[in-house]
């Protein structure tokens, strides 16, 4: 809740009548990915569609969990990832966010 509040409060709704424009706040520091092999690939690939705070707060999981997640991102959500990058990301997540 606190995070949502901060997000909302930081946003300044601007604009003349009829036109509305906002600037999104920067990502929260707590969402930064842990360093480690593959973190750069994960960073540049995942943020094409979502911020990394979505990753770091998931329940920790083994390689099977993370392989399932990465496969879902590709097959269901249409993430444009090469097979090699997908493997790199899965290994990175299982190592840094494993059980």
């Amino acid at each position, binding site marked *: 809740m606190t995070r*949502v*509040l901060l*997000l909302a*409060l930081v*946003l300044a709704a601007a604009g003349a009548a*009829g036109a509305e424009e906002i600037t999104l706040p920067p990502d929260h520091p707590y969402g930064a990915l842990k360093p480690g092999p593959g973190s750069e690939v994960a960073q540049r690939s995942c943020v094409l569609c979502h911020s990394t705070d979505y990753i770091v707060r998931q*329940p920790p999981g083994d390689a099977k969990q993370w392989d399932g997640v990465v496969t879902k991102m590709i097959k269901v959500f*249409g993430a*444009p990832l090469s097979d090699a990058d997908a493997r790199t990301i899965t290994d990175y997540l299982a190592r840094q966010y494993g059980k």
Partner: protein
Amino acid sequence: MTWFDRAITPNEAFFVRYHVFPIPTQVDLATWRLRVGGHVDRPLELSMDELKTKFPAASVTAVNQCSGNSRGRSSPRVLGGQWGDGAMGNAEWVGCRLKDVLAAAGVRQGAAEVAFDGLDKPAFPSVPDFVKSLALARVLDDPNVIVAYQMNGAPLPMLNGFPARLVVPGWYATYWVKNLSDITVVDKPFEQYWQYWMKPAYRIPDNPCGCVEPGTAPKATVPIHRMNVRSFLVSPAPGARLAAGRPVTLKGIAFDGGYGIREVEISDDGGSTWRRVSLGRDLGPYAFREWSAAWTPPRAGAARVMVRAFNRIGESQGTEPLWNPSGYLRNVIESVEYPVG
């Protein structure tokens, strides 16, 4: 949670959740139009002025709650946005009735569902756009389903759907499509098209509780729909130090999926005995209902106060959380602990 000691959630405190990126950050009403098309006699392109002048304004005070609110508390844990309890809010929404808009467009014989799309568009064509649908029978005669252009007396904030969003009182927020741009009447169930956000996403086990044995998968699923009963004790805040024998006022809110709250009760003995509390002003069956109770911590030590609500058809909350793989529908009886000195 501090915002939930009152019935109306301020716009700047309202939760935000999108599904595809990038999300809209600017809208110009000079060019924005709400397109109404598909299986209709007269396709429409409505400006905001037309929405406000061609249709009577309707108002409804209603809770908007994410299907996965409180998902972070699922045990065993599940993947998805790890919400606490803050993915909910209650606002007064003003707009035009969806049924009036559909009547103006002239829904044709054989129409089955209505699909809703907003300005949030995926960055890649391979990513499924966020589109939701409702059965025509669900919306056609419900005067409370509105295309809202006002939230708590102000234009909708950009991140809560400027300039218009669908409001489906009693049903989870997944149907409340933000930054609305297209209403399309279709002649067969929408999930038969390839549409990720109606199937397989946002579905619950096809049984009365919407739950399965923790850690197992459901055999059959249906789209998530009406909200269940929830209640929260919000003030004093959890962990506040209280004095034995000194009365305090407990405050919070309760809500359900549109029948309205009949009764809220608290217990300070682990659920053995329950005491009815006072309900605040009735803002309608879809709204947060404030409640309050004078309560005196009986003795020093750790006190735990539980709260539960009943709606007008007798539905309530359970002592054990119900579980499903998506972490939806959580409505276990909540409790708050206070150190008492």
